[in-house]
């Protein structure tokens, strides 16, 4: 990578699947050998750390020492993913603006992407308006997450489109539903999706997960990754690599 890449995964509402999306991103980059570290801002609990303990630190993104821990250690070679606690997306973006991070992104010194996980309510659309001001130079992804069987029932398409247009170059991502029992079993196993598929426990030992449930997870994760491939996520965080591939062709 030629410059540091930071991905923020957030929403102003809880229970919309932020951590699940973050987990799919970590698995995606892991499978593509893109070095990645993650910060879980759900201090002190840290759900993300339960699944990806080796690459995750738990901290409070509103505290200056923790902000230093993230942004003073950005590396050219590593993607940084921040799983922002419910209700902290707008405050986090404000903090990023205040420390000059947004300006650095504008100047092209940092690749900055936001995965905005949408909930089913109109309030969720209002978040788009709230965050739009910060994100003119970020890659902005609106994620419709159906994993919890969400029906985006409060939206009509015209309303949604009017919000969606407020952010230039915003891209929509759809995360399909995962079979409920499969989802429960991965939660119980407390392992990355990839480990569950490979029938491995938290320390890499052989496990005895259901073949059917692993199949469901593999099928689902394949669709999620297809979405990430569609938006060329690896190219976004690793533009240098993209150039090399083009040259090789």
């Amino acid at each position: 990578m030629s410059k540091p890449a930071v991905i923020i995964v957030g929403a102003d509402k809880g229970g919309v699947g932020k951590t699940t999306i973050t987990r799919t991103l970590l698995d995606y980059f892991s499978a593509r050998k893109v070095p990645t570290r993650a910060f879980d801002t759900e201090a002190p609990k840290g759900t993300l750390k339960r699944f990806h303990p080796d690459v995750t630190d738990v901290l409070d993104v509103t505290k200056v020492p923790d902000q230093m821990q993230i942004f003073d250690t950005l590396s050219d070679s590593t993607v940084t993913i921040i799983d922002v606690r419910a209700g902290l997306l707008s405050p986090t973006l404000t903090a990023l603006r205040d420390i000059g991070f947004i300006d650095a992104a504008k100047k092209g010194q940092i690749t900055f992407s936001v995965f905005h996980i949408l909930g089913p309510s109109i309030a969720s659309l209002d978040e788009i308006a709230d965050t739009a001001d910060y994100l003119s130079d970020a890659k902005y992804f609106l994620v419709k997450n159906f994993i919890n069987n969400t029906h985006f029932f409060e939206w009509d398409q015209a309303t949604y489109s009017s919000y969606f247009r407020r952010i230039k170059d915003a891209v929509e991502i759809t995360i399909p539903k995962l079979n409920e029992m499969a989802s429960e079993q991965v939660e119980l196993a407390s392992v990355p999706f990839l480990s569950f598929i490979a029938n491995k426990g938290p320390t890499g030992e052989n496990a005895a997960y259901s073949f059917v449930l692993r199949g469901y997870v593999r099928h689902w994760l394949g669709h999620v990754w297809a979405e990430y491939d569609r938006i060329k996520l690896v190219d976004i965080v690793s533009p240098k690599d993209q150039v090399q591939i083009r040259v090789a062709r």
Partner: protein
Amino acid sequence: MSRQTHVYIVASPRPRTGKTLLARALIEFFRTDERPVAGFDLDTMDPMLARFLPKYAMHADINDTRGQVALFDELIVDDERPKVVDVSAHAYETFFDLMEQIDFATEAPRRSVEPVILYAANSDPLSVRSYDRLRNRFPRLTLAPVYNDGIMRGYNLRGEFPTTNVVALPLRIPMLSPVLRSIVDTGPFSFAEFRHQPPERFPAHLETEMNAWLKRVNLQFREMELRLLLSSLRGTLQGPRPERQRDSARPRA
């Protein structure tokens, strides 16, 4: 050398195509050989297979995830015990959709489990289309058409159900006379027990017909097993067999 575990999937999208008779005959073929066998009846409304062979076939409902787990987690086990799945017409789409979604056709051979689809053919256009679709969905699986003379009634449909390899040669189930058919279809009746000891006062001409029918059917099952064995041996000679219990960790988009 250990044997592969064969999973025979007896299927048709149409009812009354002789699936259950075929599944029964296959289970009883293994019983006659005194080999362990497990049957699964996916018919939730009228589980005939489970009713005829309660000790050897169990009812399986794949309409919910628990039932799906119970069935496929059993089918994927490499225990060298042949398994026979009677896929009823109303479970047909669900079964094959699930099989495709969890990638059973790819994962099973990694564990030395060989799925074989025995497709009960008939002249219905849906039956022909569905067979073609199965070939496209599971190109690496053995898919053999089964012609039941009692269903086909003189139709020659070999052109409609093309075979893809030498392992998947068609099977032909001879027609039973109406009297014998009514005996066979009225439980309790066991082919294996008949072979061992025909019922008392069973008419001699029917006994002869039953034995001839079983001989023809069982010979085809034995030849099919032999073709499957030779096919796996050929694979062994061409290269190392895949490790058992190995899983693909990468999802396929």
